[in-house]
């Protein structure tokens, strides 16, 4: 095991894939001399040259679209959006081109590209730099959606995402970049669509992903003091979804709280909740509870932002609600 930050782990994963496959290229803003704003591609330009580290102008729509074209011809672009919020100007190449190209050509082509994007609240970046937008992507058939929480997962999943022949949206939480964790040495690839049970418990299942995994684990610790035994599932990837792990856990605990950092309305937590209600209703002792951000714009002011997105207390309250404790 080697201890490293999430950003270092992503860098190491991408670095290994660039060495392994000459078709892997990096595309995005400030990737060169600066090494990207979160230092993910530091040193890449010197090592791999400008043909494989494409430092772009501020043209998200076309450098993403350009990557679709390159992917159709066998290149494996890893596109970096500086913030996931900027997907607003690059949505066409993602949702109408990359996602649909295989299906609409009757399986002729595939688009093996990764779109990496930092997301998340809590950094006081205000409304246009703080969103969690998983739902935009999970709603589009043809895209795979990955949200790692730990350094080991970040490395293992970015490698799997790069090797995957489908377009993968890889969402990195900005406030996890510096978080350190143990990463296995040597080749470390985690298949997409395998959840990780972070903590076993028998009373309530918390299903979550990305930074809220740590909030859920903190909540579980507090609830333990009150005799509530919480199981925490880190989905790691939303598409494909590891339903078997969800099913197994729900069938054991019979109580579910789904936690997402993004705004509640039309969120992926609602989707998971609906699937559980539809297919595992008989297993449930209480309605599935959702914990999510308020249906408002991510505010700048710290006091407001902390009210906006879910905190540990919110999760604790939701768990108590499903087990009928005040």
């Amino acid at each position, binding site marked *: 095991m080697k201890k490293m930050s999430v950003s270092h782990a992503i860098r190491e994963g991408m670095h290994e894939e660039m060495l392994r496959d000459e078709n892997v290229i990096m595309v995005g803003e400030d990737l060169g001399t600066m090494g990207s704003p979160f230092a993910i591609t530091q040193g890449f330009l010197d090592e791999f040259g400008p043909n494989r580290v494409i430092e772009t102008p501020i*043209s998200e729509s076309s450098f993403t679209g*350009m990557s679709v074209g390159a992917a159709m011809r066998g290149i494996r672009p890893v596109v970096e959006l500086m913030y996931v919020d900027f997907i607003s100007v690059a949505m066409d190449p993602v949702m109408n081109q990359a996602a649909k190209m295989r299906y609409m050509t009757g399986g002729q082509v595939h688009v093996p590209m990764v779109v990496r994007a930092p997301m998340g609240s809590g950094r006081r970046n205000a409304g246009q730099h703080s969103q969690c937008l998983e739902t935009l992507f999970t709603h589009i058939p043809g895209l795979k959606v990955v949200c790692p929480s730990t350094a080991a997962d970040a490395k293992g999943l970015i490698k799997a995402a790069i090797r995957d022949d489908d377009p993968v949206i890889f969402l990195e939480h900005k406030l996890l970049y510096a978080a350190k964790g143990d990463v296995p040495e040597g080749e470390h690839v985690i298949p997409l669509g395998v959840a990780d049970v972070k903590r076993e418990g028998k009373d309530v299942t918390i299903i979550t992903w990305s930074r809220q995994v740590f909030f859920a684990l903190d909540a579980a610790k507090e609830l333990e003091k009150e005799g509530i035994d919480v199981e925490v599932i880190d989905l790691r990837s939303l598409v494909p979804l590891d339903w078997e792990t969800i099913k197994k856990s729900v069938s054991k605990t019979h109580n579910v709280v789904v936690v997402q950092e993004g705004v509640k309305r039309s969120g992926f937590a609602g989707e998971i909740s609906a699937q559980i209600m539809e297919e595992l209703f008989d297993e449930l002792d209480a309605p599935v509870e959702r914990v999510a951000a308020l249906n408002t714009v991510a505010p700048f002011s710290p006091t407001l932002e902390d009210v906006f997105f879910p905190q540990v207390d919110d999760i604790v309250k939701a768990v108590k609600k499903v087990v009928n404790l005040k």
Partner: protein
Amino acid sequence: MYTNMVRIRKFEVKLTDCFTKGMLAGNIHTSVGQEATAVGACKALEKRDFIAATHRGHGHCIAKGAKTDIMMAELFGKVTGYCRGKGGSMHVADVSLGILGANGIVGAGIPIATGSGLTSKIKGTDEVTLAFFGDSASNQGTFHESINMAAAWKLPVVYLCENNQYGVSVNIHTVTNTDTIAVRAKAYDIPGVTVDGNNPLEVYEAVKKAVEYAREGNGPSLVECMTFRMRGHYEGDPAAYRPKEVTEEWRKKDPIDTFRAYLLNQSIDEKELIAIEEEMDKEIEAANQFAQESPYPDASEVTLDVYVSDNERSVAR
């Protein structure tokens, strides 16, 4: 070139027939009147070169070598079509022929073609990619963003604007200040030229020059072909927004009629041209029959090929 122009015309006229009879579903955007641009441009390309086509892309695909029977089957939603009936009129693609696909989003093919150009540069191969797009697509951000990048990195791409002067109902001059689109090339410091898009020889010469320029590593060019779509934006559109006189004027410049007259003037035996026309009649009739007789895709195909890997699980939830 005459053969391919006639092939495209007869293919699309057959489509309009079928559409009127209620045999075709969806949106059919014909390029009747624009055949010289597609054919002249693709004539300047090698088999290994690539194109990105548009929603009005039947002509582009046929000119790049797509088979009319497989295309017709696609338009009829049949499993024998290029995309197994899943793409339809606006999405014909055959990457083995260098057709990176027609596209239902105006201006979306421009960055895709740019990415193909980037690929040739990265791999050190000498294919050229040609992006077809209309005058209206030149007002999309992708036009500016893509040409800017291709110019900065000297990518082997030819940006070919088919200026048919109308974006659905809107005349280009009511939404654009410049007389031509090609003048914008100056902004990117790349070659830009406007030619008669109804003259296949003129289109061919201009594109050939741009292709050679790109293949030699000099970067992209902008070629604007002035033309006119003689039918509506899509079948069923009477195009009442265009003055009759303008349409009539362009009808006199029908690229097939004028090229035919030119060929006769060059002492080509009319019998040869008639033979081509009859051969194309037969080909399109056979294509139509192939399409009619082909089976529809099985219902089980509805979720097939959404994903390369883990498809079943990824479409299940």
